[in-house]
């Protein structure tokens, strides 16, 4: 079990842009602590000198010919936008 503080949970939630209800904060504090406590066993695996495996195919990113093809189009891109206007996404005002 690793003890996380309420402040740590709130800090992570801010980084992740997640609004949490009060009761969620305590639950997450407890659950994340238990999971991180379990994960601590990775320290016993003896892998510190090994290279990490970020991907299993380990090939360089392939290049392709730069040939134009059919794009999705503005209508397709905007089709699911919660708010849109004149071919743009609409968001709350960012700059006063």
């Amino acid at each position: 079990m690793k003890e996380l503080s309420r402040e740590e949970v709130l800090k992570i939630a801010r980084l992740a842009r997640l609004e949490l209800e009060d009761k969620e904060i305590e639950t997450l504090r407890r659950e994340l602590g238990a999971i991180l406590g379990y994960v601590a066993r990775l320290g016993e695996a003896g892998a510190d000198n090994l290279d990490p495996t970020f991907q299993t195919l380990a090939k360089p990113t392939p290049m392709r010919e730069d040939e134009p093809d059919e794009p999705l189009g503005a209508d397709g891109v905007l089709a699911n936008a919660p708010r849109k206007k004149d071919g743009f996404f609409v968001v709350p005002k960012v700059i006063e």
Partner: protein
Amino acid sequence: MDLYRLGAWQLRELLKKREVSPLEVVKALLQRIKEKDGRINAFLTVDEEGALEQARRSEALIQDVEQYPLAGVPVGIKDVLVTWGLRTTAGSRMLENFVPPYDATAVKRLKEAGAIIIGKLNMDEFAMGSSNENSAFGPVHNPYDLQRVPGGSSGGSAAAVAAGLVPVALGSDTGGSIRQPAAFCGIVGLKPTYGRVSRFGLIAFASSLDQVGPMTRNVRDAALLYRVISGHDPADSTSAQLPPHDVLDVVENSQSLKGLKIAVPWKELEGADEIVKDRFERVVETLRSLGAEVGEVEMPSFRYAVAVYYIIAPSEASSNLARYDGVKYGLRIEGEDLVDTYFKTRGRGFGREVKRRIMLGTYALSAGYYDAYYLKAQRVRTLIKQDFENVFAEHDLVIMPTSPTPAFKIGEKIQDPLTMYLNDIFTIPANLAGVPAISLPCGFSPEGLPVGFQFMGPLFKEDVLFAAAAAYEKARGEYFNRVAEI
């Protein structure tokens, strides 16, 4: 004749002989869904009109088996694969009304092969879960015992195939999400080699682990779907430069397993239920009787697999799910300003498990913890990969049970995430190493719950998996092609 009992290959044969029409097949399945799915909750969307229309159009294609190997065959799609013009939710409130403007490559290839997309199947939200209880649209019920989970995250796909609502379905597997529900529902589930099937249009969970694969009631149907969906796709930069993989002849001709060397990491199986161990020991006997040499190996890194996975998968997820910002698509809860809109949208749009994993991943990737968690997990992942490489230097396949227990009760584990995560202990290693694995049914518990086991093979050796799977199926045919009586 009960058309809902037939698999894809059998339907194809009847269709070709014109003993049934695609329209009759689709109507029979729509009827079955209407009668039974109220109790299972496998479907999130049934595309009745679309399926009937596709059935009418596929009439003209059914004689051309080469070009249209799935003409007239209805397929269910896990709701994590986007379907052009057909609502795709990923089991989340966040995407409750999302209608994709394109098809996932796997879906497109099914359509091009003549398959009929009958609907979209329930799942744990964003494929995060092992019980299907994390769906925003209610849990799925196991057709063998409605009080129990069908497994997850492809729980809707597994339950639908097991209950005869569809002959075959697609699922996705990040840490066991095809194989574990296949085992819980008594069907076949294949996770191909990472890179074998395009991930284009698969709503991303953990991009270095996710793979799309077939879920079917027999091995040949799995091979049929696998051939259609596999092969290089320029739209996915991690897609292997290989043509579609045809293993139908392998399946057809497989009889004996003489000379095949199969490894069992017995020490890592200690945590399994007695009943699972018993059924697994019978599998070993069957494989030996078919001529395989089954020997013990050590794969000690497997005991770290769950810990590795629950750092890497949430880390990748926390990054992938940053896209749900309430701007481009999906749910939006308006806040005081843009940042507040992000907070509210994400706080209310995501369910508990998804939030938990975003939090875990954000923590593991945050300054000061990256080396201790994320990097360390990726180093231990190398150990797991090496354990596979070492064993495959001397053996053709590895076998293990698919899950340490048969299906558990709805509600039994949902309050304790760590207990739930440990359910994936036997399936996760294959994802971490990228190797292919296929789960097959191997009998029932005394309560009548299906039990499954899996073959795991070297990278891109699906043909060996299928040869072994087909031989096992021929020897133990009574566990295959079953439709749950509900």
